[in-house]
């Protein structure tokens, strides 16, 4: 008989208006317990108003070895940023 509880990742919304942010992990036997543990472990000091938990094994992550292929190509697309464009000072509201 196993006494091992699976690992969950915990995401907390600090206050309404903000997104949920990863804060850590914990072990729990089921999802309800995972929410309770997240509450007891990660919100003891009013750190949150909402909790997400997800089984760690369900998270699919990008491979760091592929980081260059995935993220470097965005580097030279400077025209995506407003500062790329030169507009005369006297033109307002742009």
């Amino acid at each position, binding site marked *: 008989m196993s006494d091992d509880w699976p690992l969950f990742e915990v995401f907390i919304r600090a206050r309404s208006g903000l997104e949920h942010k990863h804060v850590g992990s914990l072990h*729990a036997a089921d999802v309800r317990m995972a929410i309770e*543990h997240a509450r*007891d*472990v990660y919100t003891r000091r009013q750190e949150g108003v909402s909790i997400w938990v997800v089984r760690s094994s369900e998270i699919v992550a990008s491979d760091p070895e592929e980081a260059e292929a995935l993220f470097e190509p965005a580097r030279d697309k400077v025209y995506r940023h407003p500062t790329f464009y030169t507009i005369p000072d006297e033109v307002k509201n742009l």
Partner: protein
Amino acid sequence: MSSPSAEARFRYILRLADTSLILGQRLGEWVGHAPALEEDLGLANIALDLIGQARLLLAYAGEIEGRGRDEDALAFLRDAPEFRNVSLAEQPNCDFGQTIVRQALLDAWQLGLYEALVGSADARLGEIAAKAVKETRYHLRFSAGWLVRLGDGTAESHARVAQGLEALWRFTDELLAPDALDEEMAAAGIAPSPDALRLRWEERIGAVLEEAKLERPAASPYPWHGKRGVHTEHLGHMLGEMQHLPRTFPDAAW
């Protein structure tokens, strides 16, 4: 509506205060020794809520009494017969199963009580209850969830909680059977109607036991009266430990 004496109100509030204090003290024994690290934190949170409730209630009781006793004087310098907690609260932790049974039975009772006390004719009590009701709602979520897992987990866990339920059920009569003080407070609109309280408790505990696949034990004939100061042997030992320092050094401030 009759107006109960200060002495009666003092005694009634002590029932609430002492039940939270004694139960919180029991849960404090678990911290560092729970079945999983996460459970250490969970039980500690509940203990902190209960001690917080006790402090507010004891401070208020002390004011009503008007003899200058503060929360610590009431917590540390009364003897067992002066404690008014329900006897169930002082029962030993034994194993996690029995702790959870005790917790669920008391959580369901405290929740019904605090829900009603929010609208108490005693406004100060209403304020304390408004804070406590949120805490207690979580306590019951925690204990009911565990009772279901243990009742419907393995053969061993089922047997253990069934045994715990059998051992503790005999203390539930005290929660639900009103005495003269409960009646007096209810009549004054300070405390809830005992009938409504019983109904709500039966409903909640019935649902949890059913999901936990646990049989409701037969009623027990022996009526305990912790709330009138007639306790089980356990309370004296517990207070001996809890009160040891302030009693050994009566002049000291900590």
